[in-house]
Structure formats: C-alpha cells, structure tokens
C-alpha cells in the first residue's frame, strides 16, 4: 500500500517541479498589440522653457579642497600659493635611557627638521619638467576658511590684511626641486633657527607659505608635513624624529574669476552654481511631419512625458581655471528660491556622481553637448495635481568645492543656448477589452 501511495506522491511532485518553468506565449510580429502609441521629440528653445538664469558664487572655501593649488604666472594670469599651519607640536618623546628602559621625555630640544610636501601625479596639473618650490615662514597668522590673496583673517570684527598681498614677506626657509618624473614629493631641510620660527610646543607659530618659483606652471599639492628633529634630555647623544600634527591648510590665488553675465558656471573653489527657473508652456508643437501623428499643439501631461533632458553646450573656461580632471555635474531642485543663494536644495535629480564631463570639453575647441536628465522634475512641473511646484533647478558639482577649476556652458545669449529636449509619447488608454 505504501508503495502505491509513494508512486502517486512522486509523480505529482515531479509534475510540480515541471510547473516551475514557464515560457509565456508570445507573438513576435506585434499584430496583437492593442495600442499604437506615437512618440515624438520636441526641442524647446531657452525662451520657451526657462524664465531666467542666474549664476551664484561663494559655496565652500579653498581650505575645504582636497588638493591645494600652486601656480606662478600660469597662462600669464594665475598666481596661487599654499599657506599651512602646524598647530600641535609634540609634547614628549619616548626615549631609551642608559639602562635601555623606554621613558617619556618632555624636556627635549629641537635641533632641526624638514618640511615635506606631496603632489598629485595623476591629474592633468603636471609640469613638463622639474619645478622649483620654495617655503617661507609666514610673518603673520591666518584663518584658513577666510584667507585670500589680500586678506589673512576675515572673521566677525576681525579683518586683517596680509602685509603684502599673497602672504608675501617672511623668512625664507629654503627651496627644493620637484621632478614629477622621479618622485611625488619634496623635502626642504630646516635648521634649529628655522624650526624656532615655526613655533614650539608652547608657542605655535604662524605657519608656512609654499610657492612655486617656476613661472607658467600650475600643480596640485596634496599634503604637507612638518617633521622635527629633537635631542632628548635623558639621552643627549640621540636624535629622535617627531611630527607636528593638526595641519590646517588653504591656498590663496589671484585673480579670482570674474562673474559671468549670462553664462552657466559650475564648480571652482569657492564653488559656482547656476540656477535655472523653468516656465514650461502648457502645450508644445512637434516639428515637421510629426503633427500628422499627434494633435498639435500637444498638451504637456505627466503621462505623455517620457523623457526631459536639459541640453547644455560646454564653453571654454578661463584658461587659468580650466578643470584639471573630470568635472561632475549634478542637478537638484531649489526648494526655497526666495532664499537664494542659500536656499535648501532637494535630492539629486541625476543620482550617483552626476554627469561626468572630460576636462578637455572646457578647453578651446573642446565644445560638446551635455545632457542633464530632468524627467522627474519636469514631470512634476506639468502635473496639475502637484500643488507646491518647484520651478527652480540648480546645476552644481556633487562635492563642493572640488577644485579651483570650474566648468562653463553656453548661456541663453550665445550661439548654442540651452535647450530642453522632450520625448513625448501619446497613447490611448489600455482597456480590459
């Protein structure tokens, strides 16, 4: 009896497993499609889809940029220097005494040291040959977030100008040659008097200015260190190497880029943003013969809007401020345009890092078209059921500021103004039969 039941069970179970693999009956000729949607592309001129455009500057500071810039008369225009301050000097050193026991010694004497600077060898900010880099002890203190070419400190009720623009003056600490073909860093030795200029444990100094002494070059500095050679009190025939920590750094440059009148600018340090205020028509007209497919003018509805992309044409940025690496472009809704330039922003409309653009696109002759997907944003704009419509969208880099270089795009008054490319699909309703 058991065997008979087992046969029934096995047969049924095997059939059940067979049921798990399905290929739906599918017609390949399209004759069974119950709909014949019509898809058309409509390109709106700037005047047809936007009300105004405005570039804003001043987001972030140069001190927040990962890579500082050194430049000397780059493309005959740009000077940039790095100012760095080492705010924590070592308090003690671990030294073995005459019995070999490791002891903490806080009564050591600085007898020398050296500055280390590391540079980016992977980007396009690379010199073609060796360059000279110098260091000077700053004659006055500075505030990294507010320091600029002419101002050392610009905080509330405290405005201090540099004695000389560009953090000039001070005592020369020496120079070194950096050959990017050989290494990624330089070392500038310091004697005890020079170390004393930079401070000690209880008297932090004003910092160091690095400058490029080879004209026509722009390079990226990643990091600087101050290493100190100390003679311990408990073992005076020994020298130990200690590091200053808590480095604060920024770069100051001249000139700053001029504001753009009607162009689109994104990036830089501090960063630029450009805000577009959209004003979409209620209906659009398809080009050429497409009006025979759809009824023109064609009302814009969220159901019909398959795609909306902002088409921008890159323009040559000022040569001194052309991006050294790919520039990523993001778009976000401006939630309170009346608070611009400090309006809160919505989530990214693009996602990820945004749209990547090669640096060559911002050089002379490198013009290219860039598509910024705005489908969800535009769909909400043409949706009558959305009451609080957001009409402003800001173009920016996803990380601000990212570099001194910024991206430029042709504005409304140019030969290649921004356009809004819409792909619309008109369809009947799917019915049950």
């Amino acid at each position, binding site marked *: 009896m058991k065997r008979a*039941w087992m046969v029934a069970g096995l047969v049924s179970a095997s*059939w059940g497993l067979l*049921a798990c693999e399905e290929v739906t009956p599918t017609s390949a000729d399209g004759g069974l499609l119950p*709909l014949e949607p019509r898809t058309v592309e409509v390109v709106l001129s700037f005047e047809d889809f936007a009300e105004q455009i405005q570039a804003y500057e001043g987001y972030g500071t140069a001190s927040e940029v990962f890579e500082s810039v050194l430049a000397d008369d780059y493309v005959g225009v740009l000077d940039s220097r790095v100012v760095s301050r080492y705010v924590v000097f070592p308090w003690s050193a671990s030294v073995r005494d005459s019995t070999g026991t490791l002891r903490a010694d806080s009564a050591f004497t600085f007898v020398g040291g050296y500055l280390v600077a590391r540079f980016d060898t992977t980007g396009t900010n690379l010199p073609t040959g060796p360059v000279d880099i110098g260091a000077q002890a700053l004659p006055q203190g500075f505030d990294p977030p507010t320091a600029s070419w002419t101002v050392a400190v610009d905080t509330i009720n405290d405005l201090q100008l540099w004695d000389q623009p560009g953090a000039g003056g001070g005592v020369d600490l020496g120079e070194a040659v950096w050959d990017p073909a050989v290494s990624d860093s330089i070392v500038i030795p310091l004697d005890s008097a020079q170390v004393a200029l930079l401070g000690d444990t209880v008297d932090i100094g004003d910092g160091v200015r690095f400058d490029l002494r080879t004209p026509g070059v722009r390079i990226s500095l990643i990091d600087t260190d101050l290493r100190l050679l100390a003679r311990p009190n408990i073992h005076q025939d020994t020298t130990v190497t200690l590091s200053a920590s808590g480095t604060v750094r920024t770069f100051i440059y001249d000139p700053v880029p001029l504001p753009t009148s009607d162009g689109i600018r994104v990036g830089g340090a501090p960063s630029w943003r450009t805000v577009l205020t959209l004003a979409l028509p209620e209906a659009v007209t398809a*080009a050429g013969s497409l009006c025979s497919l759809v009824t023109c003018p064609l009302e814009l509805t969220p159901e019909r809007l398959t795609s909306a992309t902002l088409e921008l044409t890159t323009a040559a940025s000022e040569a001194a401020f052309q991006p050294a690496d790919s520039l990523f472009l993001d778009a976000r809704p401006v939630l309170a345009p009346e608070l611009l330039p400090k309006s809160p922003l919505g989530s990214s409309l693009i996602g990820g890092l945004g749209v990547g653009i090669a640096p060559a696109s911002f050089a002379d002759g490198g013009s290219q078209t860039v598509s910024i997907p705005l*489908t969800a944003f535009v769909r909400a704009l043409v949706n009558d059921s959305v009451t609080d419509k957001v009409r402003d969208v800001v173009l920016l880099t996803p990380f601000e500021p990212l570099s001194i270089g910024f991206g430029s795009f042709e504005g409304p008054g140019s030969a290649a103004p921004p356009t809004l490319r819409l792909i619309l699909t008109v369809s009947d309703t799917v019915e049950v039969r």
Partner: protein
Amino acid sequence: MSTVLRPVFGALLCCLAVSPLQGQSLLSAWGLGLPFVATDGRGVALGGIGVGLIGGELSVVDPAASARLPVPSVAFSFQSSWADYQDTNSSGDYSGTRFPYISLGYPSRLGTVTLSFGGYLDQRWSSSTSRLIELDGVGGTGRVTDNFRSDGGISTVRIGVARSVTPDVDVGIQVGRHIGDVSRVFTRTFDSLDVGGTIEAFRAGGRWSYRGWLASVGAAADVGSILRVSAAWTWAGDLEAIPDENTDGAGEVFALPSELRVGATAVLSPQLRATIGAHHSGWSTTDEGLDEGGARDTFGWGGGVEWAGLSVLGKASRLRLGYRNTPLPFTTDGASDPSESVFAGGLGMDLLATQGVILARLDLALERGLRDAGSFEERFWRLATSVRLSGF
C-alpha cells in the same frame, strides 16, 4: 498529514504559488481568452466533455457526478503543455504548466457536498515587436521595442451538493463565483544609443479584477447496467471587470454564456466502455462587450473508449483513447474562425482500493492537438496528470 502525502501537497502548493493559471496558447489573446474545461486526466482522454463518465465523482463541470461518492475525497490535476505556432510573419514556441482544478467532496446526510476551484478562461500572453520610428520630424529615427503583456485569467469557485434520488438517478446543483484578475500592461522601451541616453520606458495599462455569479444543475441516470447518461446546464451572470485605483482604463461588464453539456458512457463489455458527449456554449452573448474581434456560439463534441483489462505494477489499470473537436468562441478581425481538435491517449491506475472503494487513483493523459485560424496554426503536446485521494 502522512509523510507520503507531503510531496503531493508540496507539488500542489508549488504550482499554486508559481503558476496558478499559466498561459498555454497564443489564442489567449483573442476576446476574453482561451476557454478550457476543468476536468481530470480521465475526462481529457475520453473526449474532454467531462460529463457522463462512470466513476467521475469529482468533476467540476458535472454537478451530479459526486452523488455516489462513498468516502471523503480530494482530486486535483496538473497540465503541462509544449506548443509552437506558425503565422504569416512570425513563429515561436512556448511551454507552461497550469493547475486546472482542485475539488473536494464530502458525503453527508444531505448528499455529497462539493467544493471546487477550477480554471475557466486563460488570459496569459504577450506580444513584442521592435522597429524604427521617426522622432524629430526631420528624419531622425530611434529604435523602440513595444511589449504588451496580459497576465491573469478567470476561474470558478463552486460549492454544490449532489445526491441520488432513486437508485438509478442522481441530481446535483452548484452555485459559485467567477473570480480572477488580469494585468494588461503596454511598455515601450527606447534604444539608448538612438535617443542619446537612458530613457525610462513608457508604460500604460492596469489591473482589473473579475467578479460574477454562476449556477449549475445536472442530472445523471443509469439505464440498466450498460448505459449512463448525464447532462449539466450552467448559467452564468454578467462578469464585471473592475479596475483598481491605479488603472486609467474603464470597468466593463461582459455577458457570459450559458452552457449545456451532455454525455453518455456505454458498457460494451465488462472491460470496454465507450463515451461520447457534446457541449453548446452561447458565447455570442459576449460579443457585444468586446471592443476587438467578436464571439460566437460554439458546439463541440468528443468521445473515447476505455479498456480496463490491464495491470500496471500490479495495479488495476485502464487504457483510454479519445478525440474532441471544439470551435473556439473568440474571433479576431482579419482571421478565420478558430477551432481546436485534439487526439488523446491515457492511462488510469487504481493505486489503492479496498472493499470496492478506490482510495487512490492516478490518471495520465497525453494530448496532441491543433488550433488553427486560417494562416495561424498552433500545435501542442499536453500531458495531464490527475490524482484522487480518498478516505483521509
């Protein structure tokens, strides 16, 4: 539940979860779908009419069949099919397994109470095509792929009672509901190279649920000991298709047909029986509700022979041969009226019997069929397995 029964119900649950009503024909795209009869492997192999069989106690379509069910029983069936089609411009193949029915019967003082769930109309199919369209009005084109997918179907759930009114006459009645739903979604996707970037697909469509009443009465009679005749008449109320809140499409009401099934089995010898039957469905009443194509009344017939002088694995078994021919009710513009003709063979095994009561029965049926509508031809193999377990 005994360990022996677990794989059976495991398989059942697998099919219920994965493919409650899988599509098996491209003709599911016409009208309200492809009708099919929820019957077991024995009924399939004997002409597919489903009434008038001797011993068909748990038939979904024969209300009187369960009148003489001696013990509580459950029956269920699986159907796997492999089909290919050929049309003027296209061809293809597909496969699927569906779950035609499950039926329970419980003898009581009133008679045998039955509860069944079975398929009625299959609406699972899709259509896909890729082509170039002009996008910008000045010659710029883009490749699009249009896809339409219909996924769902209509089933029946019935509760009924059957009893013998005389030693030779059985009657039965069922009431039930048409239930089910269908998702119909059109999707247009764009080639990212042609349109210069990734564009999300255009989608349109929705989901409708089905509701409708049905009732069925039937009677069967033994004429001497050599003939059993049976008839069943099913009335169906209007079928409502109700869109859900996210569906733009409208609701619809479809008139469903009444259906008459008659069948008879003659005992030609102690080991040989012959069955014949026919059905008429008034599908033309549905025609008015269809926006596309039409519907027509159908009259189908089928029959077969069963030989019981066989033993497989030491179990009493039966061989069956059958044939049926059925016009399909739904038509479409520009195509000939469709029909289906099927040859079938089958094997039935009484796995467990005691004191003349069959406690476990396995029925297999293999069908080879053709559905055609002018230039459209669809050929299929279908394997049906049904199991009846009693006395639990």
